C-alpha cells in the first residue's frame, strides 16, 4: 500500500508540467498552429524561472518570469508561422533547438545552485483520505494551479464564444475570416497563451519539483506533451486522463525495482520473469508514451482521418489572406 501511495504522490507532482504544457499545446493547436517548440519553451521557463527566483528572492516572481519567457518564445513562433507563413514543423523544431541551445549556453552560472522551492500545502481533512489524500491534497501551490486550470481551459475552449472562434479558425480560417473572426489575432493569442503554459510547466519543474537547474532537465517532457495532445485527441479531459497515465508510467519507472519485485511476487511464473523484467525496466518504460502515441494514431487512422480523430482540419496550414 505504501508503494501505491508513493507512486500516486509522485504521479501527481510529475503530472503538473505535462498537464500545463499539454493544455497550452491544445490551445495553440486548436487555433490551427502546431508548436513543436514545447521542449524548448519549457527549458526556457525552467532556467528563467530559476534564475529570476534566485535573483529576486521570490518564487512567485520566478514563476511569472518563467511563464513570460515561454510566452515570448511562442511569440517568435507566432510571428514566423502566422505572419510569415513559415512551415510550422520547422519553426517549432527551431524553437526547441533554440531553447536547448540558449539554456545550455547560459546555464553555467546556475548549475549547482539550489533553492528552497514552493512548499507543500496540506489541505486539512481532505489530505487524510487514505491513499489518494496525501497525493492530491498535500502538494505545492503550482500543482493545485495546474489542476485548477483544467476546468478553466475546458470552459474557455468549449463553452465560450472565444472558444468557438478558436475552433472555427483551426478548422476553416477562410470561412471564419469571412464571418468576421479575427483569424490572425486569435492565432497569435492562442500560440502565445500556449507558450505561457509551457513556460509555466518548465518553471514548475525547477521551482517546485527539483528545486535546482540542470541543462536539459526537461528531459523530453515537452515532446511527451506534444504526444499527449494527439493521444488525447485534442480534448481537455482526455488530456487530464492521459497526463495521469503518462505521469504514472514515469512515477513507476522511478520505483521500477520495487514495482518489478511486487509484480513478480504476484505473478510467480518463472517463464514470464524475463519478460516482466524487460517490460518494467525504467528505460524501457520511458519509451511507452512515444510508442503508445504512434499506436493510437495508427489505430484511429486505420478507420478515419486526422480530422475525425479530433484534429483541427487546418492544422499545419498557414492561412494567407490576399494582402494586396
Amino acid at each position, binding site marked *: 500500500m505504501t508503494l501505491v501511495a508513493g507512486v500516486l504522490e509522485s504521479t501527481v507532482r510529475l503530472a503538473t508540467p505535462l498537464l500545463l504544457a499539454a493544455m497550452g499545446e491544445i490551445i495553440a493547436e486548436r487555433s490551427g498552429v502546431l508548436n*513543436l517548440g514545447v521542449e524548448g519553451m519549457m527549458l526556457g521557463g525552467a532556467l528563467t524561472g530559476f534564475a529570476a527566483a534566485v535573483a529576486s528572492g521570490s518564487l512567485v516572481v520566478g514563476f511569472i518570469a518563467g511563464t513570460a519567457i515561454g510566452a515570448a518564445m511562442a511569440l517568435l513562433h507566432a510571428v514566423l508561422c502566422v505572419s510569415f507563413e513559415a512551415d510550422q514543423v520547422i519553426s517549432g523544431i527551431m524553437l526547441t533547438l533554440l531553447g536547448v541551445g*540558449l539554456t545550455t549556453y547560459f546555464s553555467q552560472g546556475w548549475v549547482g545552485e539550489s533553492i528552497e522551492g514552493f512548499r507543500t500545502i496540506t489541505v486539512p481533512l481532505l489530505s487524510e483520505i487514505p491513499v489518494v489524500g496525501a497525493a492530491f491534497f498535500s502538494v505545492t501551490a503550482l500543482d493545485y494551479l495546474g489542476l485548477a486550470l483544467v476546468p478553466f481551459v475546458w470552459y474557455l475552449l468549449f463553452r465560450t464564444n472565444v472558444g468557438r472562434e478558436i475552433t472555427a479558425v483551426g478548422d476553416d480560417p477562410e470561412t471564419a475570416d469571412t464571418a468576421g473572426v479575427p483569424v490572425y489575432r486569435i492565432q497569435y493569442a492562442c500560440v502565445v497563451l500556449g507558450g505561457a503554459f509551457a513556460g509555466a510547466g518548465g518553471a514548475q519543474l525547477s521551482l517546485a519539483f527539483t528545486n535546482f537547474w540542470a541543462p536539459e532537465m526537461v528531459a523530453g517532457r515537452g515532446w511527451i506533451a506534444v504526444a499527449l495532445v494527439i493521444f488525447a485527441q485534442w480534448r481537455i479531459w482526455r488530456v487530464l486522463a492521459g497526463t495521469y497515465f503518462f505521469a504514472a508510467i514515469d512515477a513507476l519507472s522511478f520505483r521500477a525495482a520495487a514495482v518489478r519485485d511486487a509484480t513478480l511476487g504476484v505473478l510467480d511464473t518463472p517463464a514470464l520473469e524475463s519478460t516482466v523484467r524487460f517490460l518494467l525496466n525504467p528505460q524501457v518504460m520511458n519509451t511507452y508514451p512515444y510508442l503508445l502515441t504512434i499506436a493510437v494514431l495508427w489505430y484511429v487512422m486505420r478507420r478515419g482521418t486526422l480530422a475525425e480523430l479530433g484534429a483541427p482540419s487546418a492544422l499545419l496550414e498557414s492561412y494567407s489572406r490576399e494582402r494586396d
Partner: protein
Amino acid sequence: MSPTVEFERRDSLPRWLAYAAPLLTVLAALGIAAVPLVWIGVNPLVAYATVFVVQPSSIGGLADVLTTTLPLFLAGLAVYIPLKAGLWNVGAEGQLFVGAVVGSYVGLNADLPRPLLVPSMLIAATVVSALYGAIPGYLRAEHDVNEIISSLMLTFAATTFTGYLLRGPIQGSGGQTATDRLPEAAQLPTAFHPRLHVGVVALAVVGVFAYLLLSRTRFGYETTFAGSNPEAAAQAGISTYKVYVVVFVVGGCLAGLAGIIEVAGVHGRLFEDFSPQYGFTAIAVALLGRNGVLRVFLAAAFFGVLTAGGTTLAITQNVPTALIDVIVALTILCLLTAEFIKEYRIRLERGGSDPSAEGAA
C-alpha cells in the same frame, strides 16, 4: 496616424537575391550569434576566425571537419530525399541511433576478419535502420498517419531504448553507459591523419548515388513529381504509395550508415551522447540545401565546420559548445524569415491601417 508595415507579394524574385539568399541567411545567423559571444566576453571576430580560418587550415582540423561533415551530409540527405517527395523525415536522429546500435552489436559479437567484419556491420546497420525508417513511410502510405509525428516519436523511442541497451544487454565491462571498445578489426582504418577515417569516401560515393537517384532515374522523377503535385502524379499513374515508402527506406538507410560510421570511425565505441544531435541539425542542412544534392553538401560542410570548430572554441576560448545549437537554430530562423522576404516586399508606410487588424469583432 502611426507608421505601418505593408507586405506586397513579389511578382518575380530578383536574380541576385536567389543566389545571395543562403549566404545572407548564414551571415545573419552568425551576426545574431555574436550577441551571446559578446555576453560571455569573447570577441566574435576572433571566435569566427578560429572556426572558419584557423581550424580548417591544419590537417587535423580539416580531418575533423570532414568527419563531422559526413554524418551531417548523410543525415541531411535522409531528410532531403523524403522532402523531395513532400514528406518530412524528422526522425533521422532515431534512424542514426538504430544504425549505430545494430552496427556496434555486430562489430562486438561477430567473429570475422576485417575485410568481412566492417562490411557486415555496415550492411546490418543500414538494413535495420532502413526498416526502422520505413515505418513512418509505410504508416503514411497505408493509413495516412502523419509522418512528422510518427518519425519524431520513433526517434525518442530509439534514443530512450538505446539508453536501456547501454545499461543492460550491450553495456561494456567498464560499468559506464557505453559498450566495450570495438575490436581493432571492427574500426574503420585511417589515412593521412590519425583522425581521418576512410569512411569519408562515403561523402563522394553517397553524394553521387543521391544525385543519380534523384535526377537520372525513373524513381527520382516520380519522387519529384509526387512531391510537387501528388494528385497529378497519381493521375499520371505514379504510385505515391511506393514513393512514400521508398524515400523513407532510403532515408533510414543513409541515417543508419551515418550512425555506424560515426561509431566505427570516430568514437570506436557506442555511448549515449555519441551524436551531437546530427539528426536534428540535418533538418537545417536539408532546408538550407533544399535545391540540390550539391547544396545539401555545402550546407552540411558549413555545419560541419561549425561543429568541429565549436569543439575547438570550447577548449581554447571556453565557449560552451551549445553555441553551435544556437547557431543552427538561428540559421533556421533566418532561413524562414528569408523565405518570407523572398515572397514579399516589405514596405514601411506612414498612416493607413493594417489590413489584418480590420474586421475584428
